[in-house]
């Protein structure tokens, strides 16, 4: 994936998570919906953040099969 796409994912997940936190705090969004958003967002955010900081541009390699 391109760095730009990955950053877009980071941004999208972070923003939706924060927005739903705010909405939940304000009492507009029910708790279960907020939690659902987090369940979807957290994994994508974490992985995309790592990839964005250090996306691999090395060539693919075969798995380790012993010394």
């Amino acid at each position, binding site marked *: 994936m391109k760095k730009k796409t990955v950053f877009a994912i980071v941004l999208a997940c972070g923003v939706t*998570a*924060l927005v739903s*936190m705010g909405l*939940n705090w304000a009492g507009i969004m029910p*708790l279960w919906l*907020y*939690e659902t958003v*987090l*369940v*979807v967002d*957290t*994994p*994508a955010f*974490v*992985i995309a*953040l*790592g*990839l964005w*900081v*250090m*996306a*691999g541009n*090395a*060539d*693919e*390699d*075969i*798995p*380790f*099969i012993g010394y």
Partner: protein
Amino acid sequence: MIPYLIFAIFFGLLLLGIHRKTIARIQRRPGPPVWQEILHMLKFAFKVTWIPATASDTLFVGVVLIAIGIWTAALFVVLAGESILIIFGIYMLHKIVEHGFGLSSGSPYGKFGGVRSVISAASEIPLFVSIAAIAIYTKSLMLSDIIDYQQVHGPLIFIIPLAAFAMYMVILSKMPYGPFSVVEAKELVSGYKTEHFGVWRAGLEICNGLKSYVLLMTFVIVFFGAVPFAWLLLAMVLIIITLAFVCALCPMLSPFDSVTIQTGIAGLMLIYALYLGWTG
């Protein structure tokens, strides 16, 4: 929820660090600092990453996302006081995640780790025994009902100690460096996580942190009842230290012995549940 989630991840990793440190001290080694697992996670998160050439790409990545997702959901389920069956469903699903980790890369080591993870499925059966025992006494499996029951009758650990033991064994079989951790034995390099490096490994570490936190918290809530937050954390640390003693003093079993012993425990627990059902 976001701050709590982040706290749970870091505290869970800290618990794993304490576990490692305690084992080292018991074995009279200096051991890594207690925050080593957190550093691990951060280090892996920012390393160069790619997908192995032979891997099934979508599965390789998807399984990491699922791993974090299911344990995030598990945390919320515990906090909401929902059915304990959901937690254990997610717990068993972790098997599939390990299996997916191992098989998706095409590496022979990963494959063996995944296969070992699935053949040790017998380790989950004691869990259902403790569920059955709890159901017999509290007449409900909702965590909120279980907490209410304990406020009236006192902690469940004194009422059904063997069920607590069953669940303790289940948590033990998920602990690293323990007698049952055949899935990541060193003859398999790192078992199912051999080929997940960089960000993928960081995701797995996050999942492990959350997993330890959720499992220990469930144990405390189910068998001791609702306790103040500080006491909850303290209880979790104490339990992880006892687990570390077991892990430090027992050698790792061979896969066959591991499965045999787990099946034996499961059988004993089944008899116990039948006995409880008969009398209760």
